């Protein structure tokens, strides 16, 4: 187990290095204009640009800049840990700008993930035990439909129906529970959660269906039946447990994709999380802000993947010895 963990951690560090390097290249090598010009503003004199260039450390060679960036990321800069530099647009520390927004994104992502797991697994199990029934066909159709739906459009349609026409859900915006009460907060989160969850629930329903069907054919399930165990108990204790491994694997792989979904849902529902901020920063060419969120998102995805891998080894002991 320890060897497995060490190897995984080693890969995490390597991957993170590569990702930060790619991100760095995108922002400091690709653009045709120097970041200093962006920082100094439209009507900057060449002297001002030169000063800014010096202050941002842009007069160093690219690889020195990269190492400095890594150093700040790991050890922190004058604004504290992790050092993410400062925004070109409002000239304040990116770290302080990020702090409040992380919560919104995490709330959205976690809520949606729980919802899609619940929906996907339930629908998958039902269509497996009622194989080839009307329910099964409906569930498969549902799966492909929501897999195909553009998430930003789905969000709009849900808003139009449930907020504008029926008036049963609240409109857009994020309302922190501490300030506006739990109910208002929930009311505003339900549609974003469902939008994001529906997008992925289809995949999980199909996946669970396949896994349950495979497991039901196993000898130990027949043994359990022969012992006289009830169907419910067999399903929960014997079948679903075996299906956890593929579901978990898929969950780990989907975390990177979840970032995309979150960005778009935040924009549609006007939630002031990291995703919405990235899109705003992109339109105002605020490079350090986008860089910071990209690195943080990559890090979050990899740490979550690591956790999934550890869980994986825990659920399925064979993994540890591979």
């Amino acid at each position: 187990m320890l060897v497995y963990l060490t190897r995984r951690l080693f890969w995490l560090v390597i991957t993170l290095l590569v990702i930060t390097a790619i991100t760095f290249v995108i922002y400091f090598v690709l653009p045709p204009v120097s970041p200093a010009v962006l920082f100094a503003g439209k009507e900057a004199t060449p002297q001002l640009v030169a000063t800014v260039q010096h202050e941002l450390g842009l007069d160093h060679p690219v690889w020195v800049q990269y190492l400095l960036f890594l150093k700040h990321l790991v050890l922190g800069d004058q604004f504290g840990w992790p050092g993410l530099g400062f925004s070109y647009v409002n000239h304040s520390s990116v770290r302080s700008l990020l702090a409040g927004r992380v919560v919104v994104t995490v709330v959205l992502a976690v809520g949606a993930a729980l919802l899609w797991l619940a929906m996907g697994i339930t629908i998958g199990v039902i269509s497996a035990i009622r194989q080839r029934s009307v329910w099964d066909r409906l569930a498969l159709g549902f799966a492909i439909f929501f897999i195909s739906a553009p998430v930003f459009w789905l969000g709009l349609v849900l808003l139009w129906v449930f907020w504008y026409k029926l008036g049963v859900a609240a409109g857009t915006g994020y309302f922190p529970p501490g300030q506006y009460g739990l109910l208002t907060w929930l009311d505003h989160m339900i549609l974003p959660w469902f939008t994001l969850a529906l997008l992925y629930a289809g995949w999980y329903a199909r996946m669970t269906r396949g896994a349950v069907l495979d497991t039901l054919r196993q000898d130990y399930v027949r043994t359990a039946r022969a012992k006289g165990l009830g169907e419910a108990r067999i399903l929960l204790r014997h079948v679903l447990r075996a299906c956890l491994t593929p579901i978990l694997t898929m969950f780990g792989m989907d975390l990177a994709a979840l970032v995309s979904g979150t960005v778009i849902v935040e924009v549609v529902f006007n939630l002031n999380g990291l995703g919405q901020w990235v899109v705003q920063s992109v339109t105002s060419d605020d490079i350090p802000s986008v860089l910071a969120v990209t690195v943080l998102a990559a890090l979050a995805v990899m740490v979550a993947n690591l956790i999934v891998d550890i869980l994986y080894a825990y659920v399925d002991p064979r993994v540890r010895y591979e």
Partner: protein
Amino acid sequence: MTVPATMEPVLPGPAAIATRTQRQQIVRALRSDRPAMAALVVIVILAAVAVCAPLIAILVGHGPNQLFPNQLSPDLGLPTGPSRQFLFGIDQEGRDLFVRCAYGLRTSLVVSLLSAAIATAVGVTVGLAAGYFGGWLDTLLSRGADIFLALPVILFAISISSVCSITAQGCLAGTVQPGIGLVVAILALFTWPYIARLVRGQTLVLRQQEFVNAARGFGAAHWRVMFGEILPNLTAQVIVYMTLIIPSNILFEAALSYLGVGVPQTTPSLGQMIADATAGSLFTYAWWMMLFPGVLLLLITFSFNLLGDGARDAIGGDG
């Protein structure tokens, strides 16, 4: 003597069974899959609309970016709904949504087909090389693909797209220009690893087979074995996977354009049209601006997914 004669038509001999090739079997299985066939018909129709977009514009008499400000409601300047002259209504600037949707479909298909083709070419080459040669090359290529799969794709796509669009000369001293080409390149960049992973896995199995050894024994070069012997066995799976990558690329292009970092403003895109409907909650009033581009987008991706699914069942794969 008469018994075998009457038996014959009921039980065809081995020769009659063997005449059906694998390809024929796949086509047969796919043909009997009704949802997949319906999806194929829808795709053909929508593709025809996309190809004929300029023709539609001429027939209707409205250009995709032509403004009809006198069609906006006179008091508030709001868009007006579907009418005989404007089948899908007009948008906030007074453009014909019907013509724009046809052009948008064209953008979706061009971008997704091109990017899927590039991703497949790269993915197949990388996958074949990694699986066939193995060793350090395999480690390098597979790990590289793994890293790509772990990237928060949309953030990188947004970043590259916006950085290369700061000025008109683009990136890397003008080699990467803002526009449709950039979107295609970004989509291809982030989808090749999926194909590479699939091809590598299959190549690992196939290279152990006798026909590969036989080809090598006859003195065939490595590239010849890879592309001439192994690749033909993978064609069906690669095509199926490509069919499933196309809809996801259509959605990705639409999402980028929705966020304002996709194709240029002057190119009609379904994603951008939905963004127009979102701005200022316009969709609550002008439902047609939300409905038509969205339904078209859904219809085309849904059809590709259904077809891809059917094709996957037909070749008997589960990946």
